[in-house]
């Protein structure tokens, strides 16, 4: 391969410099800290590692984080699709404002979001009070975690699916209609299948984000061990107790899970590209 070395010139200069910077930067910022995390966890014997992971509190925290994140991602998948459909397919006053509102969870400091959601869903909050009358408690329960995870995940689905729906050729709907398909057939057999790869990617991103979410969740969660304590919070607690090995053991599990997720997202994208290249 011609990489600009050994006297041969690459047509585009700067390969050596940019590649060097890329490797250095990614190493310093990402790879070395992650390697450090793994090294730290090696201080534990396999038995210790296993007993930390299988302790009731750890298992519950992981179950809460992953379970609620999955549920929240499902909700975001459905609601995100509906929001995208409305934003892309219809023209209505304030459409641009709604479009901008979708990005708020991206931009808002998570702690601010957490405080706002807590105030809203607390027993005397605007939404919390009527819900309390119905006997539903949101703030300081797992339901609160769920709400916060939905909040921070929604833009991922919307922003992943939106460009795909915009690019979707209007002619394929005409084609479906001329072949005798009614509106329902057109949506379910032609439009939705075309969006599946983007929907899956958006789902995976929203899920990954919700699993790792910390800032907005801890305000609204109540943080009762085994009930409403998320895994990232348990890591922080273990660190504050100077039980670094315990913290890293949980962290490693979350890290591996994140890797698997990213891997899955990549596979999905590749699968989508081989079947449906952008022309």
């Amino acid at each position, binding site marked *: 391969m011609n990489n600009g070395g050994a006297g041969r010139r690459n047509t585009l200069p700067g390969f050596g410099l940019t590649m060097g910077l890329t490797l250095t930067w990614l190493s310093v910022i990402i790879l070395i800290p992650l390697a450090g995390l793994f090294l730290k966890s090696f201080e534990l014997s396999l038995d210790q590692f296993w007993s930390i992971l299988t302790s009731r509190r750890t298992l519950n925290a992981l179950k809460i984080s992953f379970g609620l994140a999955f549920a929240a991602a499902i909700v975001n998948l459905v609601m995100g699709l509906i929001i995208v459909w409305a934003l892309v397919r219809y023209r209505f006053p304030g459409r641009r404002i709604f479009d901008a509102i979708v990005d708020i969870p991206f931009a808002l400091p998570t702690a601010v979001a957490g405080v706002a959601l807590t105030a809203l869903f607390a027993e005397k909050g605007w939404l919390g009070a009527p819900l309390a009358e119905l006997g539903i408690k949101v703030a300081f329960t797992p339901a609160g975690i769920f709400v916060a995870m939905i909040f921070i995940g929604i833009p991922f689905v919307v922003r992943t699916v939106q460009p795909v729906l915009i690019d979707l*050729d209007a002619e394929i709907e*005409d084609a479906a209609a*001329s*072949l*005798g398909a009614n509106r329902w057939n057109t949506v379910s057999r032609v439009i939705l299948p075309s969006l599946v790869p983007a929907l899956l990617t958006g789902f995976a991103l929203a899920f990954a984000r919700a699993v790792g979410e910390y800032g907005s969740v801890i305000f609204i969660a109540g943080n009762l061990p085994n009930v409403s304590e998320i895994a990232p919070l348990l890591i922080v607690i273990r660190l504050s107790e100077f039980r670094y090995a315990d913290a890293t053991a949980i962290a490693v599990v979350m890290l591996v899970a994140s890797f698997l997720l990213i891997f899955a997202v990549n596979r999905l994208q590749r699968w989508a590209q081989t*079947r449906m290249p952008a022309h």
Partner: protein
Amino acid sequence: MIEVKNIVKKFGAFAALDHVDLKVANGELLALLGPSGSGKTTLLRIIAGLDWPDAGEVSFDGENALAHGASERHVGFVFQHYALFRHMTVFENVAFGLRVQPRAIRKDEAAIRARVKELLDLVQLDWLSSRYPSQLSGGQRQRIALARALAIEPRILLLDEPFGALDAKVRKELRQWLRSLHHEINVTSIFVTHDQEEALEVANRVVVMDKGRIVQIGTPGDVYDNPATAFVHSFIGESIVLPVEVRDGCVELGGKPLNISADGVSSGASKLFVRRHDMAIGPAGSGAFEGAVRHVRTFGPIQRAEVALSAGEGTTVIEIDAPRDRELQPGDIVSLHPRRYRIFAGQD
């Protein structure tokens, strides 16, 4: 029979179709020919039910088509950019129209498979049935799109610039193929094109459109040999166009009388249209024009000569096609006479 009566379609202030009437007989292969913006695609989409007219009627065999939407009209539509379903295999694309039929009349799986196989054989692409559209060439995609449109046994086949996105060689092949396919299945077909060569080569009848109106309907020979307007003459086939003055039955170019008849065109500024190959070269002094040959190129059976006409004060350079047997050299003074020509009153 498809009948279109008095169709009007406006986009804002722009009249895409301005009182259009058209009858298409069963089994015809009709071309809608016109420049972009002439309304031909809009007319096709209205017939298909993909667009709705502001006024007018569309009927299929006497039955009001406007009472039904696109999905109920049984009209096959082929799009310029194929509009294949990218997430489906070729087989599933062709089967789509059969699978979405109402349960009461839907074929069973074996019958659907047999029908798709038959259609893929018809377009000679059965070996591609498990591929995805992205794995096909443009010409193959368009043939699949055609097979898909034929699957529903449409009463009419509408093709919107079907070869517009293909390169010249494939386009040529597909033209001949479409014509023989039409001969084989004989479904009433209308195709839209801006390519006059395509229209003349493929269609039985050509409808020439301009600015939302139909300007001429005729056989390919008709519209080429007897264009109804100056627009049709210049749009179909290449022409030499000269601004002339008609005065009491005499035709003048740059104040100099040409020795040709005005064909009943009334006095005033007019335009003379002559096909390049209709300019006969004769000895000096024998024809309507005199000119000096500037440049000669030969290709195939003809030679194309640039001739500077000396007409009144200015000179006009025209290009003529002459047979190869007559020797032409730059600098020759030649006399030109139009074997056939048309004069249209008005400046444009």
